């Protein structure tokens, strides 16, 4: 199994945020987690990438048990987390932000090649290369955050709300790029409030409600589910 999350329980102090969540991602897939605000989607991603710890269960990636591995080592195994709210390093230039994305890599020529690949996907970043991250627009920051996430050449990329705060045209653009990244062989775990868009590009989906997975299945089936339609798709 590529990524396997089994029975994780995560607490914020006394609050039981994730209550025994299990799911998996196969190699090459786009899997989406959908759910309301505060359901535990971001918490799940933060637990996988090592920023939070589960009290029980396990997270396994490519056969490694990463449940208790520090975040900075999990990146080296090939999981890249593009956090919610983009979290661009505002005082660093676009170039420096991208270089930090490649922090785990050493060969300057290969890093430069990856940077060129990011510029091909996001030409705007090439124009802004020496601009400070904090001066970019919201859409540009999302492009930079995604590009930065690709700089470590991950096998799996965790995308947290990539469409948040973007105009509809930019949302289309970002989702097109997500599919492009996936077609180049990177698996994607996508967390979205824009369930309609997420379900349209994902192969499988999980629905999270108050820290539990309440529904899972083929993305098309989930999209057809009357409760999902009612609660998340606004139909």
């Amino acid at each position, binding site marked *: 199994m590529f990524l396997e999350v089994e029975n994780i329980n995560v607490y914020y102090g006394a609050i039981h945020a994730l209550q025994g969540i299990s799911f998996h991602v196969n190699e090459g897939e786009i899997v989406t987690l959908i759910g309301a605000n505060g359901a535990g989607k971001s918490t799940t991603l933060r637990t996988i*990438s*090592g*920023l939070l710890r589960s009290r029980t269960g396990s997270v396994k990636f490519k056969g490694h048990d990463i449940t208790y591995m*520090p*975040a*900075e*080592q999990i*990146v*080296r195994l090939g999981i*890249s*987390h593009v*956090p919610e*709210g983009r*979290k661009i*390093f*505002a*005082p*660093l230039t676009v170039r*420096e932000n991208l*270089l*930090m*994305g490649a*922090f*785990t890599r050493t060969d300057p020529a290969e890093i430069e090649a990856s940077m060129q690949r990011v510029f091909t996907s996001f030409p705007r970043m090439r124009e802004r290369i020496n601009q400070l991250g904090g001066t970019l627009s919201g859409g540009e920051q999302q492009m930079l955050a995604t590009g*930065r996430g690709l700089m*470590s050449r991950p096998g799996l990329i965790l995308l947290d709300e990539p469409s948040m705060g973007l105009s509809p045209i930019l949302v289309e653009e970002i989702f097109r790029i997500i599919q492009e990244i996936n077609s180049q062989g990177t698996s994607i775990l996508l967390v979205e409030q824009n369930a309609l868009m997420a379900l349209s590009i994902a192969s499988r989906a999980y629905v999270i409600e108050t820290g539990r997975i309440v529904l899972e299945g083929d993305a098309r089936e989930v999209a057809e589910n009357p409760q999902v339609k009612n609660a998340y798709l606004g139909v």
Partner: protein
Amino acid sequence: MQYFKKTPVTDHKPNSRLAWVGQGFLLILAIIVIIILAQNLIRSPSLFAQNVIDGLKLGFVYAMIALGYTMVYGIVKLINFAHGDVFMVGAFVSYYAVTRFSLHTWAKQIFPGMPDWLVILIGSLTVILLSMVVCVLLAVTIERVAYKPLRDAPRIAALITAIGVSFFLEFFGALGFVFSPRFIPYKQPFETMSWYINNGIYPITPGSMPPDGSITFSNIFLIIVIASIFVQLLLQFLVRRTKIGIAMRATAFDKPTARLMGINVDQVISFTFAIGAAFAGLGGVLYAIAYPSIHTQMGILPGLKAFVAAVLGGIGSLPGALVGALIMGQAEALTMGYISTPMRDAIAFTILIVVLLVKPTGIFGEPEKEKA
């Protein structure tokens, strides 16, 4: 914790009338100071220049210490009050290296034919390097033992711990079997030489006095200025151009996201403490050579003044540390020259109070923003 985070000093906005009165008062004060200085400059330009040179000597030493304060603050938001004592340890290590182990002449023992100037050059560099290494080890140990366990604690806890570490170093160092509780005359690894400027530059020979109206300076003055500028440039290069330097800035801005990049935040923090301590060690040796009397509490005042310099320049800003330190050096030297020597410390801390009242972010500081 929330309380400390949500009420940074910068949120304090004095009402406009008060600010206006304060600024008017400051303006009048500044005009008076400028008039007094101008008068003295006209009365005796050479004396004035002499004071400026003395101020530069102090200022460049403060700059080396202030870098450590400002870097550590930038990355862990901690005022490391033990920093001045690391500076003291640097001075003591060099003292024992010279007096007990004659480390400044080691090259002579191995290569007897070596010319004396080269022996002293190599020896002095070795002594300075040893002091820097000891300071680095000390600071990294302090960080691991005392500060790291408190990283997620309220900031005030770490601050009080820093004061505790500072006292520990001062009074542990004062024990008879460690350093000594007394003032010790410092033995310089090389001879100090002085020159005077009076229609040309002439060396001052021992026992003779330079003629009236000349400006004197020593080789140690030149070394301090060069070393301090070198350190500044080195640090700028490190922070702007190297991978670890960019990682330091990323870590200072957002630690969880830095970890997501694969940056080992603990190592970066240790590295920051290490660099600050190395510069403090260098400063400690040079300060002891320039003012050759050492004591376990010698780090307190230079440490605090370097801290004021860092605040004045804008804490967290590297150029700010240099500019703040040079202003502090001038303020002190001109006070000593034109008011009285005991007033120097009072002036230094008056500057701190004025900065905190008028512009708490300092010259180059930016208002602290809450991260989204």
